[in-house]
Every structure is written in C-alpha cells, then in structure tokens.
C-alpha cells in the first residue's frame, strides 16, 4: 500500500535515479540491500531501533556500505536515518519499484493455477495479456489446488478468472435462480 510517506520518498529516489539514468542499477542495489537486511535480522533491528543514536546507526552503515560511498543508495540510507524514516524502508522500496515498473510499462501480476504451469504456457499467457493490456506483463506463478482446474490471473487488482472453481460457482448460482413452474 502506498501511503504518503513511502510514495514521497520513493518518488524522490526514482526521480534521482531517472536523472542519473541508473534506474536498473539502483533497483538491483536496493534489492540486494533489502535481501541483505532480511538475512541479517540484527542489521535490520539496528536500522529501525528507536533508542540508538543516529550517529551510531550511520557509523555502522557507513562501514557496511563503505565500498559504495557517495552512491545514490548510500546517500539515501543516510537520509533515511537522519530523518528517522528507516522503518518505512520496505514501503519506500515498494513505491520505488511501483514507479520504476510504471516507467518501463511493466505490469506485474500473479497467476494462480491448480497445477503448475509450464514455462511455455506461462510465456504464452503473458504474451496474450501483454497484448491485451498494452503493457509488458510479468507473471509470478503460484499453485492453488483450490481452483480445481484452470487459472486465475491477478494484475494490480484486475482479475481474469478462468478457473473451474469460478465456473462451478457460476453454475451453482444459475441453478439456484432457476424458475420452477
């Protein structure tokens, strides 16, 4: 969810990266950084700790990010710590990704299916949807046996439901409203 804080910070970072023509680079850096944080919970705790002085935090991260000093990411983390917004990091990354995807005309979505889809099926589905939505569609496959059969695509809240479960629900609805003479 994009709230005001995360989208403001995300937009600022996006604009800077766009200016420097380094969108992809920043994107990968951000991803690496957040993965690193996830894998070392201590680091995350330090970053969002409310009692630690800012100087201590900055010292730790300056050392950790020493090899990328003066890069966009480095400055960004320092600003976050200075402004006490480090706890919003995940949201800001999500906002940044949202703006980046929009910029490149990419729509990310999930496709749920009863059985795992083959790569060919996935790419065909993505190609069809890309044509339909006039965007590059990237699908993230998940398996949901509850669908019984078929698939269900959700792209940014727009759902294309072609599952057997939906068809059965429809049939049930129709049977319930049959006129009995």
């Amino acid at each position, binding site marked *: 969810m994009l709230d005001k804080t995360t989208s403001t910070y995300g937009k600022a970072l996006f604009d800077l990266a766009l200016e420097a023509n380094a969108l992809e680079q920043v994107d990968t850096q951000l991803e690496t950084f957040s993965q690193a944080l996830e894998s070392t919970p201590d680091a995350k705790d330090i970053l969002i700790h409310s009692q630690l002085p800012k100087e201590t935090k900055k010292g730790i991260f300056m050392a950790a990010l020493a090899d990328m000093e003066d890069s966009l990411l480095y400055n960004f983390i320092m600003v976050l710590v200075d402004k006490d917004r480090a706890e919003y990091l995940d949201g800001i990354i999500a906002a940044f990704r949202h703006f980046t995807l929009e910029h490149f005309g990419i729509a990310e979505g999930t496709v749920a299916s009863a059985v795992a889809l083959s790569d060919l099926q996935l790419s065909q589905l993505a190609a069809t949807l890309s044509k339909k939505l006039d965007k590059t569609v990237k699908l993230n496959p998940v398996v949901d046996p509850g669908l019984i059969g078929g698939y269900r695509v959700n792209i940014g*809240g*727009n759902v*294309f*439901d072609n599952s057997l479960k939906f068809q059965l629900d429809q*049939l049930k609805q129709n049977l319930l409203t049959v006129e*009995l003479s």
Partner: protein
Amino acid sequence: MAMKAEEISAILRKQIKEYKHVLDVSETGTVLTVGDGIARIHGLQNAMSGEIIEFASGAVGMAQNLDSDNVGAIILGEYRSIREGDEVKRTGRIMSVPVGDALIGRVVDSIGNPIDGLGPIDSKKFRPIEVKATGVMDRKSVHEPLQTGLKAVDALVPIGRGQRELIIGDRQTGKTSVAVDTILNQKGLDVICIYVAIGQKESTVNSVVETLKKHGAMDYSIVVSASASQPSPMLYVAPYAGVTMAEEFMFQGKHVLVVYDDLSKQAAAYRELSLLLKRPPGREAYPGDVFYIHSRLLERAAKLNDELGAGSITALPFIETQAGDLSAYVATNVISITDGQIFLKSDYFHAGIRPAIDAGLSVSRVGGSAQIKAMKKVAGTLRLDLASYRELEAFAQFGSDLDASTRAKLARGERTVEVLKQPVNKPIPVEKQVCIIYALVNGFLDSIDVKDIQKFEQGLYAFLENERSGLLQHIRDTKDLPDTSELNEAIESFKAVFN
C-alpha cells in the same frame, strides 16, 4: 410446493447443457480493516460512490468513501464472516430492491428480502434505491385530500396526496397510532401504504403488523423493517428502499402513502456509520450531509402531472423529540423540508386528549386545497375557537366571575377538545366528521354535557346512518354540505331523542 424429481433433473440437464463458459474479468481489492458494519478496502481504484461490492464470503457492501488510497464501504447484512485480507469484487451495479405487486401484504428487510416467513417474493422487477427525485415539470400541485380518518387532522391540518407532513413529538405521544390509523383509513380507497420501521423494536413492528392484519389493512400494505438489532447501514438504507417500492406504484398512476417511523433513528444510524468512516462530525456530531439524506428522501414524495398518470407519493416522516425540543438539529432540518407538521404534545396525551395534537404548533402548508368543500366550510373557525380557548383556559383558572361571552367561549372550547378526541384504530369517514364538526361549530352541542359528548357523537353517527343516510351520501358524492336546514333538522331530531 410439490415437485417431481424428474422435473428437477430435466431442468438441471437443460441448465448444464446450455451452460456457457465465461471468462470473468473483474476489478478486485483486499479488505484492510473490518468492523461495526464498515470495511476499508485497498484497491478497487475505479469503484464509484454507491456501487455495490461483493466480499469473498458472499456478503455485499456499498462503496461510500473514495479516498486516495482506500475505499470505505458499508456492509449490508452479516459482516462477521468477512476477514482481513479477503478479496472484494466490484460489481458495476448500484443497489436495487424488488418492486411491484408481489410485495403487497409482505414484510421485508431493507434490501427487499422477506422476513415474514411466507416464502420468497416472486418479483422480476428491480429499481435502484438512489434516483433523482421527480422534476418540476413532471409535478402538479397537491389538490386531492388524503383522509386520515382522524377528526383533529382532517379538520385542522389536512393532508393532501403528494404532500410531506411531518409527525413530530416526544416518545410515547401516539405518533405511530396516527400513522397506523391513517393506513387503516385507506381501506378501499386504492391507496397503497408502505410502513418503514427504522430502528424500532421487533415487538413494536410485530404489533403494528398484527394491527394491520386484524383490520385487513395488510392487503394493500408493505412493511419494510430495519429493526434496532440490525447493523446501522441497514437502518440507513431502509427509507430509500421504502420510497423506491412506492415510486414503482406512483409511476403506474397509483396513490401511495409512505410512513417513515422514524427518521431520527435513521439520522443516528447515519451518524454512526459516518463517524466510523471517519467523516468529520458537525453539530450534534452529525456529518455535514445529514440535511441532504432527508431532503433527497422527502423530495421523492410527489404528485405527478396527468401525462405521467397522476400518481402520488404522500410521505409521513416521523421525528422523535427530546422533551418537546423542536429546535434540535434533525428536527429543524426535517421541519424545513416538509410541507407542515403535526406536533404531538405529551402533556395533552397524559391529560387524555388523544390524538394529542397541538393545534397551535401544527400546520399544513398545503392546507385548504387538500380538503373537501364541506370540511373547508365547517372547519374554518375551529382553529380560532381552539386558540382562544387555550388562551382563556389559563386565565379562567384564577377568577370565578366571568362574563357570559367568556363563559360561552370556554364552554365551546371544552366541547371542541372533546369532539376532537378519538380512540385508536377507529378512523372515521370524512362525511361523519363533517356532521359532528358542523354540529359543534353551529352550537348544537353547547347544551350537551361535556362528559356526554362522545356518547352523543356515536349516537349521531348511528342515527344519521340509519335514519338520514341520504345526508351522508350527499356529502360523500358531492363533497359539499347538504342543504343546511335538512342537516339542522336531522341534528335537532336526534338531540330530542338523545335527551
């Protein structure tokens, strides 16, 4: 309903055979928070205000607040099965209720589901509950009377078909009785009555339904009930559902009477859900548009012009006051919207003056054009008589030495009050009302003891029915007074028998 197994299986076979494979494309969101009949939903970017949305559990809601990053919705019906993170679907529809003849005689909830245990309602037609009210050019001014069967109302604050007359008073002052009597009096007059109970006790609604049934009034009535136990969104939509059912009949050229019992509870329900939706509170914590919820509802009462079939919706909204305070926020709002009000006073009610109508504070802005000629003639001075009596009454308590004209005025006033009393569930046809008020204003009752007035009234009705039915027939047919000498003679001859 008896049904054969083969029949069902044949239908099923047909359904399954003809079943079309469809791909469902819909816009969805997820539930962020849910509680107190309100849900906040992330997503649904293109949802429209008032649109029906569907939760994964099957419950439906109505989009209300369209904020920058979420949608606030009211949930209609059961909301306990909705969980955080559930998927919510747009439907592209706005809320509708079933309408038509199938509803007559039924008790339904705010969304048109039957709650009287008489089986499903076989109605194929639906109408959206929020529509724009009839415009200026489609209307006609109110000119036909809607007889309430209550002497005090028909004589002092006449109601016309297509009018909106507020019934206002403290709790326990007989507001519901006024409405129920009015419904009972519409028997055989081709008026469809819709009683909308908002936030009432189930037992109260039940007793109203029983009363209507006992007097055969359910044959032309619909009861819409959103009782106190229902969540506030149901209370909020109930009056709109009621008026929507009424509109269907109005556009067929029929006459409809809608009673909203009561709008203060609807305003309170709307306040509750507005506060939960985090809309800014205003005076008495009501949201800014509390005037609009009532004005758009009551604007839908109308008298249509002849091209549209001359149908009408008469609205009788109720407002419950606290200790007679007419200047409360919602009360003043509704007073300013309606075409007049009937004020019921609890002092009168406890003094045994029932219906407890305060003639001084009750008005009908449509007035004389909604009265039959005969009533207009006899009731002209009634209001003045009552006003001067109320003025003298306080004064007369101090002194015993009163001059003759004052004593006469007091005597007339006492009899006027007595004549305007009426027991509940006993509406009186207008021709009889005219006769007794004629007798009153022309001084025939001055020589009758105050305690005998009611007996005299009943006797006079019976006498006129049996001995002088031509007179009653004349008023009924011509709507005008018969020859006064004949009427005088009739009353005099009954008086001779009575004494």
